[in-house]
């Protein structure tokens, strides 16, 4: 059997995440940098984008927080108002590993950054700073890279 079937599953999962995350980051940047129509984005739409980004951060924190194990929820040392019924967002393991490798040497600091950004997203995103935007944009970039890599593997089939 060819790899196509399994690559196709992987591609779909990565591409869906890349697309949704990029869309959320675009909306966030429009507001943060005061771009045209940035303030016209409906509040409910922004809230939905923030929920998605919080879900991504929750999944990563569960993976990267030492001692909690990958099947546990992140440590709740910051205020949280996330709906308890939000299931953990499935993120392709290859994306998690890309992020883990990129921050392997500075993981404790990176986990702190993830938690800070998560906390500010939960506070209506009003206090988000440039560093948060950069962190979220980097996650969208990683999802895009992973998608492109899987796509190239399908291309070579």
């Amino acid at each position: 059997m060819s790899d196509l079937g399994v690559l196709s599953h992987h591609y779909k999962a990565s591409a869906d995440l890349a697309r949704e995350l990029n869309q959320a980051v675009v909306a966030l940047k429009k507001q943060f940098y005061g771009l045209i129509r940035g303030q016209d984005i409906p509040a409910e739409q922004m809230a939905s984008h923030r929920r998605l980004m919080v879900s991504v951060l929750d999944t990563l924190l569960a993976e990267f927080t030492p001692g909690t194990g990958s099947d546990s929820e992140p440590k709740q040392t910051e205020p949280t108002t996330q709906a308890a019924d939000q299931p953990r967002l499935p993120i392709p393991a290859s994306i998690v590993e890309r992020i883990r490798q990129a921050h392997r040497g500075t993981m404790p600091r990176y986990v702190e950054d993830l938690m800070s950004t998560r906390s500010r997203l939960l506070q209506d995103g009003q206090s988000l700073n440039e560093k948060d935007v950069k962190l979220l944009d980097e996650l969208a970039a990683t999802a895009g890279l992973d998608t492109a890599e899987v796509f190239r593997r399908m291309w070579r089939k």
Partner: protein
Amino acid sequence: MIGDFLRGLFYDLVHRCQVLRSLLEHREHHPDVTGYAIQILDWIAQIEGEIAELMADPTLGTPPLLVNNLRDYRLRAQLIKLLEWFPVPAVLRYGPSDHYFFTLTSRVASQINYPLPVPIVFAFSKDYYWSQPLFNLIGVPALEEHSLLGLPDMFHEMGHLLIRERRDELLGRFQEELRAHFATEKQRVRDKQKPPEYEVILERVQEQWIDTWMAEFASDMMATYLVGPAYGWANLRLCSSSLSDDVFRPGPDDVEATHPSDDARLRGIVNMLDVLDLETDARQIEQRWGDYVTLTGHNAPQDYALCYPPSLLEHLAQLVYQECTSIGLKAYTEQPPASGDTNILILINDAWNEFLMKPDEYLQWEEEHLAELRRGLGV
């Protein structure tokens, strides 16, 4: 200006969509694929709509968003390419061989109570059997039309299509169990103060299980559920044709491959045969596999079991069985004995029995039964 270049790229995509649409609209399609062509046109229209929305956004090409715009472009460009490579040629070149397989698959779908639309089959694959779950498409090599022994592999591809539609039900619970298993294993590595490399291996193995191996094992198990022992024998036939260099690879030192090792896959198939209570077949296939491995001279590398824990495979077989049953798929063991219309599941297993018992006479047997099958299908 890079912004203008990006805008040009989007215009180029719009053009490609128009060409694809035109190719499909100005052609009379075979009745098997008329609906599929409409579905492809819908996919194209959806992408065109998304591109139009992106291009109408006044922030397109502004410096803070350039990198995001490029990502948006790439995702749409990839989809257009996939349409161009897979479903569009399958429709434009649809011919008698594709029709034979579509008719065969339609009959199979009814016999196994397949809950999804019957996939379109592209009968000129250069890459053995494959599936494109994104587009409900299966690829089959040209010679398969003239044989019965390789047909079980089609059920593996149908398994991929089922996973695409019902991933959460089929694999969601197992994925969480996988995470828990590897978290425990990593803790064990720390507790026993093993070298840190072990933790890296476990992380990579977990990644492969979640992204690729889990779906591959589950598709094998679904195929076994549907077509029974014939899938195990077809797997042994495939391995014998030297598609892999070593039946124990990938192992702990090279986990990057999308497919798990042939040995582990065979174990998974045997696990499903056991769940189906087909113990005699399971032991025969296991024994023949052992003979084959001895012939190859391959040996399992150190720490091989880290990659393919037997308990995980056994548990996955049980979960796949439960989910197949719950969605109403008919197991091979539930297929009625042949009467009236040819039961293709039974026919494939009969073919394998004949091949194993009378290899010298098999080709004559196959020729007669293929002709009968064709008559029954009306193709």
